[in-house]
């Protein structure tokens, strides 16, 4: 008889072996010897955590109760695996390219990295998984109790609570030790994966051994066993179609959505090609796992007393036959199934809880500063460890509270139905870009509520959570709200009923809300990335580290921070790592430093994106890209502003230069004018003085001489007066104190007057006019306008240097504006003088002609007073002035 003590010793040895294997695998992985850890067989075996203690013990119980129906639990995943080309390939590719850490992360990433969604999925996953963990604890305690009852050497039956507690503590320890080695949840847990691969082999071997023993040891071969099946209670094939199809679909959905399956299938996936092997090896594995279930059930039903728990047939049959070694092997198989499930589930859930619930709260509580990376790392690790403990404790509490009375299979299906609610959000999101965050939330919420009401709460039994009246007559007495006959759908199996309604309402709400809502930009980007993942991510490259990447990094850094600085930085880092040359190992410290260095030049987000593109092999996430876009936009805006500013400054500088040039020119002109004025004043003064002295001192002057000298003096004083008059008029005009005397008159008459006043058309200046155009009536200060014309004609007379000087006066009426051009045939005014001719004191060219340089300045002032302009018109073949005047009586001075 197997003693309990022996069992405990074997169990402890086995656990020690698991620790050793995990430890060795972790060490090998860190030493870089991971080729064999990465084999597709290890991947396939790690998928076998789908087969929990529920499979190991429960399947036989399931079969003993309802025949072949238990097969649905494996047929569903088999269909998913052989259909890997549809979904799993896409999920794994997305998981790698987006660096997904859990199913909550996957769903939230798809819908624009919504943390609300992640929190919701996490909570749902915790609620759905807790009973399942309790189930594992229960199966271990049940099996220990079975052993104890069979042990004749002791009468002490171990307390079931303490057994469960012991197992829970051990599992927590193992998980924390090997599951939280490194922070990056995207990195592989080699130790854990190796341990569960070993456990997968043990449980398959154990079940096959028990099966073979039952068939060939306890029955007499295959045909005898088949005969025994035909003779048993489960001989008839009578599985209801709805349950057969419904449970198969449920199992398929759960296989995709269970957090622990997602963990090993997507997160721990080393290489997409492993899926190829798993696509046939996993179906083969579960087929072998379920091969002997019906024979064991049939033989157990036949040989064991009817009171025996069919869930424990795997254990009690070897014990009945006195095969202690086989019984212990069988126990180890069940123990392996239970522990591997709890370990992976705890890792998966703790990642979700710490990433989506604990860390956001911590960051919020500490002011949201994630800048001190060391700090955050330790907090995240602690959060994850606490979450692992929390998840296991939750399972233990559920186990204590529920009392472990329910049949194993029932809890399993309830849990399956809970996590299957992720399916619409997950699958539709992979294939339909129109799926939105609001839709996913609505669908999850609807499915969750229906599941809670129709399956989870009633699963505790009548009157435990839901009162019997609600079960019988529906909520608020509404019969169509009966939890197990929703909308009048009575007569269906409870699980099928709940799955049907929850999935139906879930999907409907999801699609309707998705159609009605409008996604945010990041949702749409993520949606496109997910749906078209095969177009975006070219390679399935793995995260191999090495010097090749360091070289790429060096090339990139040289471009950004310059060759000398980059080489200095790299060689310093290499020296710190004890390596010669320029290429250090791409260690996290080095990468962080490099990123900081680069971010000084290109911005943090850009630097991160660049380094991760070389190092990660992952595509840059949309958030990275958006941050890059933001930075770029900021830089562009800044440089735009700078450009605008510098343009403005250049404009100002140009204006200043022009002004300065003008001032300098004016100052030169003014000096010239002063000398001219003094000359102009001095010449008449000299004559006046000289002739007045002659008149005073000379006694015998003839009367004619006297008259002549007196008239010279008179002329000179007239000239002086005119000069002074001009200056006076200019100052009056400029100060704006002029009074205009507006009259009616014709332009033609005025031009006649001006031409006559300047001496008419003579040999010295021919004047060409177009009299037909001049017939325009004016209402303005005619005298002052005439003065402008006179000045212009006088100027032409004075300065036109042509052989046969000629002046043409052309008149135009341009939309109510009078335009009079005075164009002579001389050499015109040089470009550099054109700016200053209208300034006071300005005189153009040599000083052969008399004049103080006030004429044009006066003209400009007069025209300004009359509301018109006078400008120099370049490019007319001579000096050309244009006078414009509005014909309407709109006078500026009045």
């Amino acid at each position: 008889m197997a003693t309990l003590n022996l069992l405990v010793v074997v169990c402890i040895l086995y656990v020690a072996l698991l620790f050793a294997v995990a430890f060795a695998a972790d060490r090998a992985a860190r030493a870089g010897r991971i080729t064999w850890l990465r084999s597709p067989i290890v991947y396939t075996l790690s998928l076998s955590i789908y087969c929990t203690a529920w499979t190991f013990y429960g399947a036989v119980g399931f079969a003993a109760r309802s025949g072949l129906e238990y097969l649905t639990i494996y047929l569903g995943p088999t269909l998913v695996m052989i259909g890997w080309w549809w979904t799993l390939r896409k999920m794994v590719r997305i998981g790698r390219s987006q660096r997904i850490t859990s199913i909550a992360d996957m769903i939230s990433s798809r819908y624009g990295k919504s943390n609300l969604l992640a929190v919701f999925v996490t909570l749902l996953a915790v609620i759905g998984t807790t009973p399942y963990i309790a189930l594992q604890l229960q199966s271990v305690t049940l099996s220990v109790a079975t052993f104890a009852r069979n042990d004749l050497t002791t009468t002490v039956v171990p307390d079931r609570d303490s057994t469960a507690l012991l197992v829970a503590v051990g599992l927590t320890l193992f998980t924390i030790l090997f599951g939280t080695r490194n922070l990056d949840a995207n990195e592989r847990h080699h130790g854990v994966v190796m341990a569960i691969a070993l456990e997968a082999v043990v449980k398959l071997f154990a079940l096959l051994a028990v099966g073979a023993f039952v068939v060939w040891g306890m029955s007499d071969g295959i045909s005898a066993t088949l005969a025994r099946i035909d003779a048993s209670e489960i001989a008839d094939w009578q599985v209801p179609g709805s349950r057969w199809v419904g449970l198969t679909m449920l199992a398929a959905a759960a296989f995709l959505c269970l957090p622990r399956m997602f963990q090993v299938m997507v997160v721990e996936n080393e290489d997409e090609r492993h899926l190829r092997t798993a696509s046939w090896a996993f179906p083969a594995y579960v087929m072998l796992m379920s091969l002997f279930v019906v024979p064991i059930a049939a033989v157990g039903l036949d040989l064991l007393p009817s009171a025996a728990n069919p869930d424990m047939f795997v254990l009690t049959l070897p014990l009945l036959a006195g095969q202690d070694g086989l019984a212990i092997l069988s126990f180890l198989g069940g123990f392996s199934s239970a522990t591997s499930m709890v370990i992976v589930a705890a890792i998966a859930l703790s990642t979700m809880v710490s990433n989506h619930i604990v860390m956001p709260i911590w960051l919020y509580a500490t002011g949201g500063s994630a800048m001190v990376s060391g700090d955050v790392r330790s907090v995240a690790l602690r959060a994850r460890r606490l979450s692992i403990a929390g998840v296991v404790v939750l399972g233990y509490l559920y186990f204590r509270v529920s009392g472990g009375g329910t049949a194993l299979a029932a809890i399993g299906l309830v849990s399956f139905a809970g996590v299957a609610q992720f399916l619409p959000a997950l699958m539709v999101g992979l294939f339909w870009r129109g799926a939105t965050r609001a839709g996913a939330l609505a669908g999850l919420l609807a499915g969750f509520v229906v599941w809670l009401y129709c399956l989870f709460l009633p699963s505790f039994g009548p009157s435990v959570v839901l009162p019997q009246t609600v079960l019988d007559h529906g909520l608020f007495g509404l019969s169509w709200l009966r939890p197990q006959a929703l909308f009048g759908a009575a007569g269906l199996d409870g699980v099928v009923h709940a799955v049907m309604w929850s999935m139906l309402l879930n999907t409907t709400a999801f699609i309707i809300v998705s159609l009605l809502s409008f996604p945010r930009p990041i949702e749409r980007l993520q949606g496109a990335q997910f749906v078209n993942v095969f177009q975006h991510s070219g390679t399935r490259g793995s995260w191999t580290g090495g010097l090749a990447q360091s070289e790429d990094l060096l090339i990139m850094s040289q471009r950004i921070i310059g060759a000398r600085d980059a080489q200095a930085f790299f060689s310093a880092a290499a020296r710190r790592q004890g390596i010669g040359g320029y290429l250090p190992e791409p260690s996290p410290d080095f990468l962080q430093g490099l990123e900081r260095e680069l971010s000084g030049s290109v911005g943090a987000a850009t630097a991160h994106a660049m380094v991760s593109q070389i190092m990660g092999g992952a595509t840059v996430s949309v958030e990275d890209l958006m941050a890059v876009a933001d930075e770029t936009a900021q830089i562009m805006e800044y440089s735009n502003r700078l450009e605008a500013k510098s343009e403005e400054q250049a404009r100002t500088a140009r204006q200043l230069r022009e002004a300065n040039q003008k001032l300098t020119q004016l100052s030169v002109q003014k000096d010239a004018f002063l000398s001219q004025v003094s000359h102009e004043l001095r010449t008449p003064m000299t004559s006046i003085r000289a002739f007045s002295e002659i008149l005073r001192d000379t006694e015998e002057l003839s009367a004619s001489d006297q008259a002549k000298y007196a008239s010279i003096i008179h002329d000179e004083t007239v000239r002086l007066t005119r000069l002074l008059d001009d200056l006076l008029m200019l100052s009056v005009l400029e100060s704006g104190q002029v009074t205009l005397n507006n009259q009616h008159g014709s332009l033609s008459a005025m031009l006649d007057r001006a031409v006559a006043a300047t001496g008419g058309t003579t040999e010295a200046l021919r004047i060409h006019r177009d009299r037909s155009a001049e017939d325009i009536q004016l209402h303005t200060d005619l005298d002052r306008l005439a003065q402008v014309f006179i000045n212009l004609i006088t100027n032409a007379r004075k300065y036109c240097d042509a052989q046969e000087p000629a002046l043409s006066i052309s008149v135009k009426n341009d939309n109510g504006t009078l335009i009079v051009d005075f164009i002579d045939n001389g050499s015109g005014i040089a470009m550099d003088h054109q700016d200053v001719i209208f300034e006071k004191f300005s005189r153009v060219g040599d000083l052969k002609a008399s004049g103080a340089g006030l004429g044009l300045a006066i003209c400009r002032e007069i025209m300004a007073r009359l509301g018109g302009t006078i400008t120099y018109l370049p490019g007319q073949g001579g000096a050309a002035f244009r006078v414009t005047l509005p014909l309407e009586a709109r006078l500026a001075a009045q």
Partner: protein
Amino acid sequence: MSGEAGPVFLQRRTYRRRRLKDAARLLPFLGAILFSVPLLWQGTPEAPTRTSSVMLYLFVVWAGLAGLSAVISRHLDDDQDDDTHQGDPPERP
């Protein structure tokens, strides 16, 4: 899907590979149908369908599916799986 159609005739190897992909996509449907077949075996009250025969049938189908999947996935080579479900990229004959 691109508006530009690929060549009408493909190399034999390429053609074979595409049909393998089709097979990989269809395999789960074949499995689902085969697994549902026993639902049609109602039997009669005197001679109900035996669990043992259904079990044998299911396991034979199961093993066959795993074998088929192994053959298909082995022959789908790595460098050609980067296209989408919707359309295969045009290839030069």
